[in-house]
């Protein structure tokens, strides 16, 4: 399976994703430069975390106009697998590949810590290796992860099982206290209509090695690899 990790100016988790795919998953992986317009060589595109273009205007607002994003949109429209992590999620929202928008964390501060998220739908390309309701321990690191969307969108997301991850306590309880950033309905990750596009604020690449304190992030990588293989 060949992954492409998209590099925008200001991305800063691209090397982390590359490291995990290459050294831990032992799959093929290349960097995809933001000016590249052909992504046909890849089975899965990763939009990594960071501060694309400094995130000075709005998170992801400038990156979405990168030439590569048109290719990413076409790739997604044809059913290609796309995962946006943190800033990558924000870019997918700005690009309209996922619904909704991000606000600043209610604390108004950047937050970096391990968080617990509950798998709300284990029947997706991204979570099939996890159990429904399984609690994953995965770090978050963001200043704007406060997801919001209008009522109709939220209803549709819930109805169609497209809310994939919710912030929860260690016991799996979804509570206001377990919500680190004010995200509506404790939403930590959502999918697009075809489930092939996935955006999430937690960083699975930071929880993919024992030595870093958790391997729960591996479930997400392993899910997409299993999905790809089952598709043949």
């Amino acid at each position: 399976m060949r992954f492409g990790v998209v590099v925008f100016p200001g991305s800063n988790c691209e090397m982390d994703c590359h490291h995990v795919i290459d050294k831990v998953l032992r799959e093929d992986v290349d960097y995809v430069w933001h000016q590249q317009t052909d992504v046909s060589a890849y089975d899965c595109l990763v939009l990594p975390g960071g501060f694309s273009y400094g995130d000075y205007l709005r998170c992801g607002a400038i990156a979405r106009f990168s030439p590569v994003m048109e290719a990413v949109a076409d790739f997604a429209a044809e059913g290609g697998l796309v995962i946006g992590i943190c800033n990558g999620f924000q870019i997918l929202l700005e690009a309209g590949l996922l619904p909704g928008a991000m606000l600043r964390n209610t604390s108004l501060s950047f937050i970096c810590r391990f968080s617990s998220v509950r798998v709300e739908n284990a029947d997706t390309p991204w979570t099939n290796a996890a159990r429904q309701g399984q609690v994953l321990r995965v770090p978050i690191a963001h200043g704007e992860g406060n997801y919001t969307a209008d009522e109709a969108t939220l209803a549709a997301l819930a109805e169609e099982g497209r809310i994939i991850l919710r912030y929860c306590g260690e016991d799996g309880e979804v509570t206001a206290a377990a919500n680190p950033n004010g995200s509506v309905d404790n939403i930590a990750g959502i999918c697009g209509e075809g489930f092939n596009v996935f955006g999430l604020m937690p960083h699975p690449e930071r929880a993919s090695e024992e030595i870093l304190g958790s391997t729960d992030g591996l479930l997400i990588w392993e899910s997409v690899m299993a999905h790809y293989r089952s598709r043949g």
Partner: protein
Amino acid sequence: MTELYEELGLTEDEYRDIIRILGREPSKVELGMYSLMWSEHCSYKSSKPVLSQLPTRASYVLQGPGENAGIIDIGGGLAAAFKMESHNHPSAVEPYQGAATGIGGIVRDIFTMGARPIACLDPLRFGSLESPRQRYLFSGVVAGIAGYGNCLGIPTVGGDIYFDECYDGNILVNVMAIGIMPKENLIRGQATGVGNAVVLMGNRTGRDGIGGASILASQEFDETSQEKRPSVQVGDPFTEKLLIEACLELLEKNLLVGLQDLGAAGISCACSETAARGGVGMKIELKNVPLREEMDPFEIMISESQERMLAIVEPRKLDEVLATCERWGLPAVVIGEVTEGDMLEIYWYGEKVVEVPASSLASGPVYERAAERPAYLDEVQSADLAALEHPSDLNRVLLDLVSGPNLCDKRLVYEQYDHMVQLNTVVYPGSDAAVLRVKGTSKALAVSVDGNSRYVYLDPYGGTQIAVAEAARNVVAAGGVPMALTNCLNFGNPERPDIFWQFKESVRGLADAARHMELPVVSGNVSFYNESFGTAIYPTPVVGMVGLIGTLSTRRTIAFPEEGLVVAMLGDTLDELGGSEYLRLVHGMTAGRPPALDLEVEKSVQTTCIEGIRRGIILSAHDCSEGGAAVALLECCCAGGVGATLEVDTPLQPVSWLFSESQSRFVVTLREEDLGALEDLAASRQVRVYALGRTGGSRLIVGDWIDLGVDEMKAVREEALGRLLKG
């Protein structure tokens, strides 16, 4: 011109020197350049003779002081570059941008040497949080560090934060960065090769931070003076991130001869230092410098606009260099060339405005300042501590200590920093040292910063030795062998004999401790004039220690790892409450003598601990320092979520055993069956092991002195800072 040199802060003798060097009166631009390059900040004219006693060599030191950062060989073809510096004054003016640009500057020092920056650590000192101004400065500094460092994708993995009234008028923002590189990528800030191009990369130049007060005073005030007000430097981490990637790519492709960042004194400093180090001259045309606004040559030469680099490039590689910068979206232009001789010639639209020997700028005057032992020392050192009445509720004292600003949990701060990006942080903040794995090897670096200014105030020589010993001890507790150190020396006005005496004694302590412990000083920074309204801060030397962990599996944290382990104290506890946090908090005193430090004992205790860890005997280790044994034990319990039941057999008073900050001690855990082996290891080094009891349960019980629930202690420690910040 006579008035101008004074306004620029030059002395009459210095002005005469300039005339002697040039054989004529300097131009205004030249005078501005000399005033900056010969300022204390750039020239180290007061500190240089004192710093010369620091040990700087070891077989593994690849680069000592004098370059942008120090570099040590860590084996396997890799090297680590690191340095610490101060951004005190800019942070006091505008805390967010001051701290942010501090990060920017220290990070540039690291990748300028060819290393990828892998971590930052920030020692911070503030006044009392009871003051709204201090709360504002604190929040601003922390947000600035987070805003800049997080955007760069460089984890902030450690640091320390102390609050004391002595910083009410002058906060300290020190920053340390560390990077890793393949040895062959090492590059220096040197211009060589006559005919090579001088390339300016990065942000356009504006009037940022133009010279501060001295230059402002030199400007003629007229209707445009409001616009000419020196503007605060604003950080642009996005451009810095592009600079990091572009520079590392240029070095990887072997396209550069020399690389230098632009910091204090901007183009003046970068050109003169690179030329002087390379023993060459340089010819610069300032009209080629990309500007953000209209500026004259004087302003361009001294602007401190951030996120700029100077590269020396062979003509045949120039196109590829410019193309690489373009690909990263970075402005890059040729502003001049390397010439024979040692003259720095600056042109402005073809007209020569500067012609000075580069070396004369880079090596300024040197002063032997007067030093005199300050009068306060006798008074504070002779304070009678024996007569103090101690409180009887020791549980209360312990909780008060860990809910005070200095010893409370700093989670609220480090969770604002991305401390995980790059996937190297394998011991997170909150332990004695941060541990960063070196990918592709089984090794890791252990890094810690330390500097208790209260000790240094009470005894500049001994207190500074403690800073070295404790930074090394922190590295040891994490399982590392200390290798080398950097430092930032924050003092008051060096022209005052009492302050300069503090400085000299402190550096003597640093030198003696470093020499004795065989730790080369590979880089550092001096910050003088840290005072306001004539009151200086406590002398505050801060040490940054880097150590090597040979195999990742021997890394340790402070946390009690499980139940049923033996808890032991390595090293002796003495009746030493002088300078302690206890004395400050309970009795409101900063007095007495700091704890004694015997460097021979220190080394023995540290090698015992390292050996115990290496052999798998010691399972957790925590340096025993501020707050004494009681606070150390509490921290071990909180970090591990495990209690302990302990008994102490001591002739000391309870408060002395619990809260004395005696040096050369570790709290360790080990299996019962290994106790004999540890005692043998220790005995062969004349070190005592005191078995105190066992881990287990949900309470910390120390004889009939302390009995507290772990959950309660955790809650008290964790909620304290948030409460203090609310005022």
